[in-house]
């Protein structure tokens, strides 16, 4: 019975994501994190013009009423610049760069779900994970609706993607 209820709830949120157009909510969540934590104004850019290479991918899982994954993807140099902006100094290691990108993804995910009425109480976040390197394929069980926004940070593209499970 409870499984049916959970599935119904997830389904209703997946439907909401289509009906309510959550892309502006995701974009606002991204803009706020960059403005507050990196002291940097970012705006979405046309997706066809800029595609980041996926050398660094941070991800945070969503479970519960909203089920899926949020990823933040950029190249190595941009990830390093992002870490420097957060820390106010050069990152001391690749691990620190990955940590910074993971935290950005974590804050975007939290900020996004906190903006969706009725979602934040029933949705949990995983701790962030970060993949670095080129030779990997990304498969997710959350093969439902997806939203993507690309922003320019110090003239380099960063892709933020929300993939929801149907």
């Amino acid at each position: 019975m409870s499984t049916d209820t959970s599935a119904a709830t997830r389904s209703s949120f997946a439907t909401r994501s289509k009906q309510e157009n959550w892309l502006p909510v995701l974009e606002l969540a991204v803009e706020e994190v960059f403005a507050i934590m990196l002291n940097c104004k970012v705006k979405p850019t046309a997706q066809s013009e800029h595609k980041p290479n996926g050398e660094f991918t941070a991800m945070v899982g969503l479970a519960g009423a909203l089920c899926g994954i949020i990823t933040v993807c950029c190249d190595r140099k941009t990830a390093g610049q992002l870490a420097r902006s957060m820390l106010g100094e050069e990152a001391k290691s690749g691990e620190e760069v990955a940590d910074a990108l993971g935290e950005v993804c974590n804050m975007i995910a939290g900020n996004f779900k906190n903006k969706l009425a009725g979602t934040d109480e029933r949705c949990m976040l995983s701790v962030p994970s970060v993949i670095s390197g080129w030779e990997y394929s990304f498969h997710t069980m959350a093969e439902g609706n997806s939203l993507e926004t690309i922003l320019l940070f110090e003239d380099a593209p960063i892709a933020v993607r929300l993939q929801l499970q149907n």
Partner: protein
Amino acid sequence: MDKIRALIVDDSSVMRKIVERSLRQAGIELEKVVEASNGAEALVVLQNNVVDLILCDINMPVMDGLEFVRQVATVESAKGIPIVMITTEGSESHVVQALSAGARGYIRKPFTPDQVKEHVLPVLGKKV
């Protein structure tokens, strides 16, 4: 204001640095900062260090922040140390759980130094 000794608990070392920097930017003078990457580690740190303030994340591996707050309440030597949560979890239920467990303040990430000041100074008995 007297200098304070702070324990910062977060699984991200970058975030621990940012929290420390935000405390300094908020005008809070720090005598000492000790760190832990999860609740269990923080309990060990508390056995070996005297602190005046704890800033703690919620979502962490091994022992999360809510369980840590509950555990601190059972440690005689740590009772009364003000705990302020700093977390991406912004729901009312998380706030209620944290405050019920004994946390004295709650800051949502992303946060500004002013928000740190606003939430931390009162728990240290200082005016904002």
